[in-house]
């Protein structure tokens, strides 16, 4: 049973002659369910949502303009604040894009490190999703705390490697900033064990819960055609059944040497989105294990890198599989040490465009978990 807008509601939206009093409820920008400073204005008729109007921009910092006014190295600090749950992945995407227009090569060891860091960031971000989504559905923070334990360990690990937890600026153009600590491999393997344990816990808490499944199943399903038409990427797209993953489609880094599966859903409902993310985390741990096995020695930073990077006329679009979807960086250089134009195609922003049509016709309580299932990060939406 699908729950798209019922005919009655649709006709009510379009027919002004029937005069019923709807209520407008403002959810956000300060609301526990909006995961940041997102705001949506719901028009509700009793408990049913008849209209939804999202408002964004409360966290706009002018990332693209800031990048134009800082040189390639300095702008890095702004980029890992886009998807602030996966700072390492954003840095990597930025670096790949700049490397693509400048032609700087990256040592192999650094590529592996980047993959490990990006996948750990993905796990981190998805843990945040699982925890917050459980809280949205109403499990009183238990899922949140479960997720938080693993996140804390990952952040501790980042701190050990890079000296900072959320915004490490560890990945540099031409490699990574410094080599790994000595106990790196055993540390990562321990971390992976802990992550697997945390995943088992969360899996048992949420996936095994009848009420949770009942709340999520068959809610706001999205067809593959509609998802493609809206430009949706990432787990939300894969939940509709399309195995589209940039890491497979246009492999960058060393992803073509690694074995992993793309989890896809069946019908694109909330439960599939949840489940795709959960499964992706297992795949990420698999990727990290392979990286540890294959990782060569050697340098981690291109030694031929000039002190100040200057790029002549060049432009490139680099698509990166961010945690939320296709994290596309468009870079354009016209000489000098600063980019002429940087553009971010942020996946959260594009995924958010599906919100209205999914929310209309559902209950208020559903609207909250639909928003949660899109897993937006406001730093990325507002840029």
């Amino acid at each position: 049973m699908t729950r798209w807008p019922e005919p009655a509601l649709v006709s009510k939206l379009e027919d002004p002659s029937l005069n019923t009093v709807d209520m407008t409820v403002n959810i956000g920008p300060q609301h526990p369910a909006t995961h940041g400073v997102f705001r949506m204005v719901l028009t509700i008729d009793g408990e049913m949502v008849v209209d939804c109007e999202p408002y964004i921009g409360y966290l706009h910092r002018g990332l693209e303009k800031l990048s134009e006014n800082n040189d390639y190295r300095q702008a890095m600090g702004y980029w890992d604040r886009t998807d602030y749950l996966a700072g390492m992945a954003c840095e990597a995407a930025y670096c790949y894009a700049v490397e693509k227009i400048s032609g700087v090569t990256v040592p192999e060891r650094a590529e592996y490190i980047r993959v490990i860091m990006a996948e750990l960031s993905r796990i981190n971000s998805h843990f945040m999703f699982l925890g917050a989504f459980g809280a949205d559905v109403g499990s009183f923070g238990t899922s949140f705390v479960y997720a938080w334990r693993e996140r804390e360990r990952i952040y501790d690990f980042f701190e050990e490697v890079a000296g900072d937890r959320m915004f490490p600026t560890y990945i540099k153009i031409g490699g990574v900033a410094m080599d790994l600590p000595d106990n790196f491999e055993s540390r990562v393997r321990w971390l992976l064990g802990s992550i697997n344990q945390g995943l088992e816990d969360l899996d048992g808490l949420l996936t095994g819960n009848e009420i949770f499944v009942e709340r999520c199943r068959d809610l706001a399903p999205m067809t593959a055609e509609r998802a493609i038409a809206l430009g949706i990427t990432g787990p939300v797209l894969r939940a509709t059944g399309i195995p589209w993953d940039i890491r497979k489609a246009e492999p960058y880094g060393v992803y073509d040497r690694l074995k992993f599966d793309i989890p896809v859903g069946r019908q694109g409902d909330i439960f599939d989105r949840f489940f795709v993310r959960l499964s992706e985390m297992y795949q990420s741990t698999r990727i990290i294990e392979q990286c540890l096995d294959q990782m060569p020695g050697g340098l981690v930073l291109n030694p031929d890198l000039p002190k100040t990077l200057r790029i002549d006329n060049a432009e490139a679009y680099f698509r990166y599989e961010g945690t939320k979807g296709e994290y596309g960086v468009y870079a354009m250089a016209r000489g000098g040490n600063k980019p002429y134009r940087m553009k971010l195609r942020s996946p959260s922003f594009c995924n958010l465009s599906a919100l209205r049509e999914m929310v209309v016709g559902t209950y208020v309580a559903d609207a909250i978990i639909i928003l949660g299932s899109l897993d937006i990060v406001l730093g990325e939406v507002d840029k």
Partner: protein
Amino acid sequence: MTFGDPFFGYSWLDAIIRVVIVVLVMTVFVMYWTYGERKLVARMQMRLGPMRTGPYGLLQAIADSLKLIAKEDIRPAAADRWVFEFAPYLTFIPVLMVLAVLPFAQDWGVRNLSMGLFYVFAVLGLNIVGIMMAGLGSGNKFALLGGVRAAGQMVSYEIPLVMSLLSVAMIAGTLDLDAIAAMQHYRPFILLQPLAFLIFFTAMLSELHRAPFDIPVAESEISGGYFVEYSGIRWSMFQLTEYASMIAWSVFGSVIFLGGWEYPKGGDWGWGWQLTLTLIKSVVWIAAIIWVRTTVPRLRIDQLMAFCWKVLLPLALVQLLMNGFILVYDWPQELLFVTSGLGAALLVGIIIARAIRRPKKTSGLVGTYRQVQGTPV
């Protein structure tokens, strides 16, 4: 020592003294139960809970109450003044009235009414009025939504609740809470009426707005529901009401189903043991409520109503009918256990049958993974 006699000659004075004692004990219990709940929830969530105020955070309850008393009492400009300000107290009065008839030990309550059971559920239903006043008077849409939800929920769940209590009252043949407790000398009524117990527990969670039925106060949806605009002392009145009614429900439920102060050996071992029994049972009862709260997500409003009207109510009605047959024709009492147990098995079976449709653990779903090589579709 018996508590049945008045402390002083005058029955009014005696009643007032007893009320004061009950309220004081209840308030202290609530203060420390909030601490206990935080510790318990923290343990379930792999945390430590309050640790900083005093040894093991023991002074946390006092710090919290001081903070709440000192906090500014805010009234929104759009609020309906009198409705807004009196709503918290109106929610508290029914709970207080209920505490006055609960038997905490043999003959030890404020007063024992011959219609105690009826009184309890008649009066406990009244605090919805205060909740709706809060929802209407706050001038806030979240509060209004919370009030509407609370009203629908309480009106619906009152019916299975009353049905489950009636089925026990039929067996007991009395509405006197003390007599009902005393009747369970050999076996508590939960053994005779497991289905009624399950229905009672579920409906009680709903009446208390506890997870998974915390829809009226859903923090992630309507951010607190009817008390979203309250602060300081009035907010703490709502909190006090919630916890006090939790205590009232747990004592009431343990009297009805678990034997109250009587089972086991309450009548033989004296009042000390009886009070201990009441304490143990109500603490376990409340801990169960909190356990449920920590682990399950929230239902949606239509699922909540469907569960009430399509599952709980028919089962409760059938049980009432079966009880009637068994009691009128004087069939052996063991049949009560059989029929009610079958009903309980059916209820659990319904839930399990619905849960079977869910996917197994993650590894069971490998079929949906697709190994994709090269460029995808």
